[in-house]
């Protein structure tokens, strides 16, 4: 079940949008209308009090709240509901915000300028959210909380290939399908935290995602990952891995 929220500071547009959204919400089992408000803080409170389900949030980027603009609101929502779907309602000039693109990772942008397409776009967003949510539920895409420095980061376990570190370094590198994240930490502690997420230690400095192992070569002692990368296996872990993988 997806809860749908709306935050927009102009009362006229608020009623207008909420009417459209309510009209489009004809999936009674997949999504339900929760609340619409012009006050970001109130919205945050509602989310915190709601039961733990994913939300679909329609937010105006330019909120006239001095403490909390749309980006910051979205960021705070992400902290409470890391896998929620955020859709920004925006006028054209704000469309290319890099901050939004990489920090909030919104589902979509809906342009205020295109009045006639708006209804259609909102409908599309709701459908995508519902579809993605079903896909997630079927494939068990669990999010892993990773404590990087002072900030806890949520990453989809399917995206992570392996964690690695270097002997002279205190930084851990998360190798994902599309890139790399480097943060300060110890691989031993991380291994303990990752115990419940199907991660295997194959080397003193490598922690590999079991889901991404393609082949296991015992003779030459390496693992081939789904993207073709090779990870060395050290002598200490060969036996254990063999038991687990074959």
């Amino acid at each position, binding site marked *: 079940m997806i809860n749908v929220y709306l935050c927009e500071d102009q009362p006229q547009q608020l009623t207008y949008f909420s009417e459209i959204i309510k009209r489009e919400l004809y999936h009674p089992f997949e999504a339900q209308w929760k609340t619409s408000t012009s006050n970001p803080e109130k919205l945050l409170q509602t989310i915190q009090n709601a039961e733990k389900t994913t939300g679909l949030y329609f937010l105006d980027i330019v909120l006239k709240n001095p403490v909390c603009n749309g*980006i*910051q609101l979205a*960021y*705070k929502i992400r902290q409470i509901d890391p896998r929620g779907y955020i859709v920004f309602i925006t006028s054209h000039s704000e469309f*290319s*915000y*890099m*901050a939004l693109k*990489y*920090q909030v990772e919104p589902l979509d942008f809906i342009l205020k300028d295109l009045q006639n397409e708006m209804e259609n776009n909102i409908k599309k967003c709701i459908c995508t959210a519902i579809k993605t949510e079903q896909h997630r539920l079927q494939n068990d895409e669990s999010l892993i909380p990773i404590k*990087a*420095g*002072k*900030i806890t*980061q949520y990453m989809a376990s399917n995206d992570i290939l392996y964690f*690695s570190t270097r*002997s*002279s*370094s*205190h*930084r851990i*590198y998360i*190798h*994902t399908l*599309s*890139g*790399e*994240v*480097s*943060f*300060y930490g*110890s691989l*031993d*502690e991380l291994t303990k935290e990752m115990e419940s997420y199907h991660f295997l230690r194959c080397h003193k400095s490598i922690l590999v995602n079991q889901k991404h192992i393609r082949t296991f070569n015992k003779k030459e002692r390496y693992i081939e990952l789904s*993207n073709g*990368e090779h990870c060395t296996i050290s002598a200490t872990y060969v036996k254990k891995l063999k038991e687990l993988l074959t």
Partner: protein
Amino acid sequence: MLIKVFDLSLILLALCSKFFSLNILQPVPLHSKKKCVIFLVLFIETMCMNIYQYYSPLYQQPFSWFRIILSLFFLTITLSFHSSQKCIRVFSAFLGYIIWDTSETAMNSLFTAILYALDSQIVHREMLVYVFSLTSMFISIILLFLIRFYLSKCVNGTPTQRLFIVSSLFINFSMISLFFYIYALNPNWYSYFIFLSGMQEITYVVIFLLGCLNGILICTLVTEIQHTHDKQYQLQTIEVKATYARELERINQIDNSYRKDSLSYIQKLNQSIEEEDINTLKELLNNAPSSIFALEHSSEIDGINNININGLKSLIHVKIICAQMQHIIFHLEIPEPIESLPMVPYDLIRIVGIFLDNAIDAAKDSPNPYIGLALYQLPDQTILILENSCKEQVLPISSLKEKGSTSKGKGHGMGLYIINQILENYPDVVLYTQTVSNLFIQKLSFPK
């Protein structure tokens, strides 16, 4: 019974302060597992020492090689657990231990000497021993904290700077320790009273003077550190200023050439208009010099005024012009004023400089050259994002970070390696690298 309790608590305290002394001067915190091992080894060492002191026939024997060799042996084991890779860590641990040991024994002897100089008929000798050792432990730990405080105040720079200061400290303190081992520390403190009572008055003076010397040395040391740091800081500032001046010069040159180009262009236009030569006019308009139109996007970079960090602003400005000269579209996004970032300006500029240089190099060869830079604040962190278009996807990214890895030929490719080296000193900073369909994205997060 009471004495036994005192003894035990003293051993425990000695253990704790030893452990602290090994860790206080560390530049980066240790992992908890290693800490436990070190603590265990130190514990065994202290127990061995005390058992040895009580049961050996040499008990109350002033000086024994065996004791020193034993303690050195344990110290080596501890240090080998401490860290096998970084010499600076072992060095600072060793230094911490030496400082602690020296100042503890020095304080001990100083107290005893002063007390005995005042009155040689002291009744509760045993109790006084406890008081002395407690105070000296306390003082030596405080001393270590003071040194660490100064180190952290003075040295927030590169490992080489740290190594320099740590080694200068090391030399000074080993000198003092040598003095004390020769003059005062031959007996351990149980038999110290006997030794001292047999001494001539001149010895008190020597010990007192040594105490003073100790103080003076520490003071000079601290000023010395401050001085070297100031000097280095000045050098850095001069360097940054020089780069800044050079870049200004370049902007000036660009500006001049731009002015010249447009002037001559307008003159040519004017001429052909006067001559009413429409063909030349057409040709001129079609083949306008590129420099005239290269800077047309500069209105988009207004956000640059929101950066209030010295150096960073001019660096970004220069690189924007540099990119635009090479026909790269530059998108800058700094919505709110940025006053400071939790990173030494020198390191920050190096990192951003490397990022931008790489981005310009990569974007130059791509079909639709584009670079985007965003700097903005969130409730708990400040984010810097750089994205650039590139010719082909580079995967895996890990291959880029090896020393000497490059796509540019010999002599390049140190950039990302240097960034990783710098980030070793900033535990809270998180670096994200990503490629998404011909876009190369780098994100730095600085927690507040």
